[in-house]
């Protein structure tokens, strides 16, 4: 007998969602694919520099083990090591798959795949397609999914927003409610299993390198329905972004991988002469400009904010490529140099770029097991929206890899799970209708909001609050204050007034709904940061004295808490207390038996 076709709902059409979709339909399932936008416009395409895989085409004797160790060490020993091992082992095969699909990877004269350096890795391990690797990988999967769409195995719901999951009477997720963003119609959809692949929450910080659609709203929605969040306090701050009022545009780590140097003007401490200070090379002789992102961001912050060097108001340092031959830059970095010229109006081949750190990526997200099941049966999560693979800090060019790999795991597993018959009863018509009606009532209420606050301005304030208290450096006073201010913001949300009361493409009302989810998620980030009393990866906490003042050492430098493996080599788990509308934090053990934790120090060469 032929296998009954199982129906999987995939929410999100970035790399992870598309990869899961392809795996499901190849194995005989059908997919309803939901996305805010035509999937070809998903945020994966903003990834520039490349994708890590041990291809060893440069004769450097690179090994999969080295990639494994770099990732675990780079993540400051907070990533599940078995999960990471699976990912790095699959990486070279993933590249071959993309090569067959037609990704125009940059090649060597011999026609084989070129590799480049990336931060936190000593060997050349980053495969790339110019400086638009994410775009090219996304397009390849988009094209393959289009093929399956023609065959009738994938039905796309583009310009649809996920609102919530629907559970059956046994608490198993068997469908979703979604809204058509043009007609504003709200509909319930049944499924055998649901995979969320909705990307990161960058918009919680307002100005960041993420697309406007990366608001974390779907993650927050299921968090409020009982899904646990893992490690939300670990947000990557990318050291080199071009700050802007509408967004901070990413300037790829590939710039440093191809020889870019970061510097500021200073007076030479001995001679007193004005000179360029290449501070990363000075502070971290072993890795220099190629230290991992958390390390580079902290160094820039220290130099600009605490030492008063670099450009001030707005704060900037130089990222310099002008010493590299223009034709080499064109071939390796063409696309992004053009971007700098487009948006800043200056040519980075001739003048140093002006950059500053920006919120970029969330290591944390929905807690999943190694097969990408969340704690709610029937609900899976995949890609940046999950917490897996990166621990306390992600290495550059590991995000495209984890996005694709997680889809390769979640897709087949969704189908296996659906076929194993543990999915319980399908939703009844009444259950679907009840969930739909709740969402309709919520939307109608928002459309009629008549207060004095503007949602976009509140969003701006949310970003300001989060950047002020929960970014490169954190302290417990600030985090307590942040929680207070977020609670206040949540109250003020009730007093929003919308000017658009209609129900056709009402972007204002949809955004207002997303904003509430963003504030709720911001509280989860902040509470988790408040309770983690250590410094690890992207989470750096300043020591306060008994009076609550920041402690400094004899040189006047801030003193940070140390990593505390005994207490905090654990996954942060945040669940939502519905009554109090507050996050509740606990800790969970994870698998770290393969590589023993050791001190992470990029001033010296890594020892294994």
């Amino acid at each position, binding site marked *: 007998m032929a296998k009954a076709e199982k129906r999987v709902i995939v929410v999100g059409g970035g790399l992870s969602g598309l990869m899961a979709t392809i795996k499901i339909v190849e194995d005989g399932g059908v997919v309803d694919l939901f996305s805010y*936008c035509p999937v*070809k416009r998903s945020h994966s395409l903003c990834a520039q520099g490349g994708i890590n895989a041990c291809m060893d085409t440069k004769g450097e004797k690179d090994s999969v083990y080295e990639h494994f160790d770099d990732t675990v060490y780079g993540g400051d020993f907070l990533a599940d090591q078995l999960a990471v091992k699976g990912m790095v082992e699959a990486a070279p095969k993933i590249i071959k798959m993309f090569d067959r699909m037609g990704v125009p990877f940059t090649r060597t004269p011999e026609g084989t795949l070129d590799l480049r350096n990336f931060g936190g890795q000593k060997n050349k391990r980053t495969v790339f*397609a110019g400086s638009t690797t994410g*775009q090219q990988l996304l397009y390849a999967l988009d094209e393959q999914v289009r093929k399956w769409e023609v065959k009738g195995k994938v039905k796309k719901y583009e310009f649809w927003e996920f609102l919530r999951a629907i559970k059956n009477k046994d608490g198993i997720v068997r469908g979703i409610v979604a809204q058509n963003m043009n007609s504003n119609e709200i509909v319930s959809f049944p499924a055998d299993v649901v995979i969320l692949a909705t990307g990161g929450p960058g918009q919680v910080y307002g100005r960041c390198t993420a*697309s406007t659609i990366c608001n974390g709203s779907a993650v927050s929605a299921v968090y409020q329905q009982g899904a646990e969040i893992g490690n939300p306090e670990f947000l990557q701050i990318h050291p080199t972004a071009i700050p802007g009022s*509408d967004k901070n545009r990413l300037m790829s780590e590939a710039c440093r991988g191809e020889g870019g140097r970061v510097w500021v003007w200073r007076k030479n401490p001995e001679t007193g002469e004005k000179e360029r200070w290449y501070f990363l090379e000075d502070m971290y002789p072993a890795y220099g400009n190629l230290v991992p992102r958390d390390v580079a961001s902290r160094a820039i912050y220290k130099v600009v904010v605490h030492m008063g060097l670099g450009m001030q108001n707005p704060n900037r340092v130089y990222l310099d490529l002008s010493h590299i031959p223009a034709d080499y830059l064109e071939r390796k970095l063409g696309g992004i140099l053009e971007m700098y010229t487009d*948006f800043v109006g200056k040519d980075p081949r001739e003048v140093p770029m002006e950059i500053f750190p920006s919120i970029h990526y969330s290591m944390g997200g929905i807690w999943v097991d190694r097969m990408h099941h969340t704690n709610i049966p029937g609900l899976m999560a995949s890609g940046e929206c999950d917490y897996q693979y990166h621990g306390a800090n992600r290495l550059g060019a590991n995000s495209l890899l984890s996005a694709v790999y997680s889809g390769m795991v979640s897709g087949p597993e969704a189908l296996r799970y659906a076929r194993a018959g543990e999915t319980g009863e399908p939703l009844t018509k009444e259950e679907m209708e009840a969930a739909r009606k709740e969402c309709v009532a919520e939307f109608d209420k928002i459309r009629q909001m008549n207060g004095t606050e*503007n949602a976009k301005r509140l969003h701006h304030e949310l970003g300001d609050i989060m950047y002020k208290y929960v970014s490169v450096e954190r302290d417990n006073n600030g985090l307590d204050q942040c929680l207070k201010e977020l609670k206040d913001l949540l109250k003020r949300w009730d007093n929003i007034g919308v000017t*658009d009361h209609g129900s056709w493409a009402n972007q*204002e009302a949809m955004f207002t709904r997303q904003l509430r989810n963003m504030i709720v998620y911001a509280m989860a980030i902040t509470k988790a940061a408040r309770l983690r009393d250590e410094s690890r990866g992207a989470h750096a906490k300043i020591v306060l004295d008994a009076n609550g003042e920041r402690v400094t050492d004899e040189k006047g430098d801030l003193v940070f808490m140390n990593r505390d493996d005994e207490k905090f080599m654990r996954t942060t788990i945040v669940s939502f207390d519905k009554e109090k509308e507050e996050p509740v934090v606990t800790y969970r053990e994870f698998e770290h038996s393969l590589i023993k934790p050791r001190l992470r120090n990029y001033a010296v060469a890594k020892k294994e």
Partner: protein
Amino acid sequence: MSDNQKVRFIIERQDSPDSKPYTEEFDVDYRPGLNVVAALMEIQQNPVTVDGKKVAPVVWECNCLEKVCGACMMVINGKARQACCALIDELKQPIRLAPARTFPVVRDLMVDRSVMFESLKKIQGWVEIDGSFDSVDAPRQNPYTAQVAYEISHCMTCGCCLEACPNVGPQSDFIGPAPTVQAYLFNLHPIGKYDAPKRLEALMQKGGITSCGNSQNCVEVCPKSIKLTTYLAQLNRDVNKQALRNIFNV
């Protein structure tokens, strides 16, 4: 231009696909580096026209704001382009924004470009692989050919070239430059070229390459500087060769 000056926007609005267009004017505070999307965001924070009327915020589509996703294409001072990289300093004021009317308007500046994605189905815009399994090696590729593929693969389906093309519209079935040129991309790939005859035959059909009038408008507006006319010409030759092959059955 000094920092306390205002920038005037004249925006062509439309409440729904069937309703009548109208214009509204807004002022936005100037600041260095301001672009059209950032200005539209300012209007969202304070949706009041120059006449002091409080109105619904302007609706448009955007995602990445880095000129890679293709979402924010609109007609700015008469020219189809991405709004995110349209710097105010480089635009004549007042700045006129309008939807790209080659496509059906959804609301205000947002249009329905699904026809472009449908066209990618017609030209078989993918490499036919046996599966996404990982046990098969990939063929080696000529680095020069790969560079050409990289250039064409930047196409973000934004629709600027369709908006600019005089042959795309109700008078013709032409699928437009962008989807047509994608056929050339897949015909370049060592595996993709196996299906080249299928793609070329699709381009012989109504709406295919014979509808291209070679007006050269597309190459002028492509935000990714893809040499569209070069590849259209190459495809035209390939299609003709295929037609001959079909006649002589070789």
